[in-house]
């Protein structure tokens, strides 16, 4: 049985619809990522699932049981990390971890072992004795994550867990998530603004304006991007971008770290692109055909 089943979920705030009928299952042992622009409805879904919000319509089943019948049950069974999780600022790093370990009734021996694993990801070991209030922003976020991961529930629900976390720790955090889903069959529902993280999920739901537009494996979503995609390597990508993005009837351009990504509608040829760039007298060091990434897919969807 799928641990979570969401059926036709709807929720409005006053007259503003936030989620307009969303259905999906979180399968046993999978990492399911929700991505979408700010305000797409991701947090509303998450808060409904952990029964902090009452949906207007639809059903949420946890292990086949409707969570409406027993809202506290689900909260005691899943690990939930809200967007802004509060630590105890006056407790040290280690005291916070111990506090949550005891709260979640993790046996002492297990707590100890888990703490070491979590220090390895968070790099907080050397700062055990520091008060949470004195940590940097990203260190606080990592401590909050660690406090939640100290117990190992069957279902984890994480709303933007890597907010402000540096690239190295993000990588290590995802290794922890993957290990947990592969080895222990933990089912994980996660939202993120990082497309490289979305790419590591088993399945990704692309949300827009209260709906899930597509839900599939990252590779499959990338295949939906069928128009030829190029990167224009250039010394000043944003200048090139500013010169050409107005012509989005001809080419769709997006700014990336390595240069400008440009999509050719099928009827246009690479040669036409080269001529066009030459006419504009733009300095471009190299034009390269590339495979679309999830970020390209996301941007395309948002441009409509």
């Amino acid at each position, binding site marked *: 049985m799928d641990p979570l089943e969401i059926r036709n979920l709807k929720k409005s*705030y006053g007259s503003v619809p936030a989620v307009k009928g969303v259905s999906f299952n979180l399968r046993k042992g999978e990492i399911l990522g929700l*991505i*979408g*622009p*700010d*305000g797409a409805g991701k947090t509303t879904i998450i808060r409904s699932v952990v029964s902090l919000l009452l949906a207007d319509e639809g059903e949420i089943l946890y292990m086949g049981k409707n969570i409406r019948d027993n809202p506290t049950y689900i909260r005691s069974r899943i690990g939930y990390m809200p*967007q802004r999780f509060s630590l105890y600022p006056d407790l040290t790093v280690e005291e916070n971890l111990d506090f949550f370990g005891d709260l979640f009734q993790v046996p002492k021996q297990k707590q100890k072992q888990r703490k070491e694993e979590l220090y390895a990801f968070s*790099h907080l070991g050397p*700062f055990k004795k520091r008060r949470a209030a*004195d*940590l*940097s*922003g*990203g*260190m606080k*976020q*990592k401590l909050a994550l660690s406090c939640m991961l100290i117990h190992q529930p069957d279902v984890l629900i994480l709303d*933007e867990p890597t*907010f*402000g*976390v*540096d*690239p*190295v*720790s*993000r*990588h290590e955090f995802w290794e922890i998530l993957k290990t947990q889903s592969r080895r222990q069959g933990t089912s994980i529902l996660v939202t993120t*603004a*990082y*497309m490289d993280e979305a790419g590591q999920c088993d399945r990704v739901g692309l949300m827009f304006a209260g709906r899930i537009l597509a839900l599939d494996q990252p590779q499959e979503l990338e295949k939906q991007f069928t128009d030829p995609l190029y990167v224009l390597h250039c*010394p000043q*990508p*944003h200048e090139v971008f*500013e010169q050409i993005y107005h012509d989005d009837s001809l080419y769709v351009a*997006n*700014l*990336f*770290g*390595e240069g400008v990504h440009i999509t050719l509608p099928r009827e246009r040829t690479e040669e036409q692109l080269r001529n066009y760039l030459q006419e504009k007298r733009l300095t471009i060091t190299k034009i390269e055909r590339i495979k679309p990434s999830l*970020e390209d897919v*996301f*941007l395309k969807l*948002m441009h409509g």
Partner: protein
Amino acid sequence: MSQIQNSNTADTVPMEDDTMAVSVRELTRNFGKFTAVDRVSFSVQKGEIFGFLGANGAGKTTTIRMLCGLLLPTSGQASIAGFNVYTEAEQIKMHIGYMSQRFSLYEDLTVRENIQFYGGVYGLSRKQIKEKTRELLDYLNLWDQANKLTADLPLGWKQRMALSTTLLHDPQIIFLDEPTSGVDPVSRRNFWLLIYKLAARGKTVFVTTHYMDEAEYCNRLSIMRFGKIVEIGPPGELKAKYHARTMQDVFMNIEHREER
């Protein structure tokens, strides 16, 4: 872009050079026995977009708070827009804009009210506040949201809003501490176009980020590690030095070095 400094050449940092927006020499901050910022030296030219990278806890926010006149250094020197961080903190505050890591907005005020409130903080007159409000709502494309409660705005809008309050007094130097954390790919790009616009108007932008693609958008970068600046230079030079294709690779390479 030749004013690249590191601690070896700190003696030659031109503290009074008026092409410099920020000049820092041997700047240090201790918390008890712990050294959060350890003798950093660098300078930022006027009109530059300067990226300030580093792992969590490297000392970025602590440095920025010293440069903004919010935290006293333990030792070393820093001058911001020509003002001394020890003795001229008040002048510094009038010449810079600072958007903090978890930006502070009053969630129960509307967008318009927030701008008015911060205008008051910076001592603008009623007339100036009115003009500024109009100008900023235009510039940031926030008209549709003007009368909404800040709490109800999606993060990307809040972030624009926070930026607008830091621009109210038309500062020359803008410090942005992780302005795009948690922001979706579209809003992030729009935010960077705003940063470029500011730089095009001659503003100096000092920005931290954990998105390595954004690092590539900067004119020059510094990478901090355990309180020290370990690399400084334009993204292209750093990539060449590490034989790396992306800044992500450069960053990972530096962070996985063993020595402290």
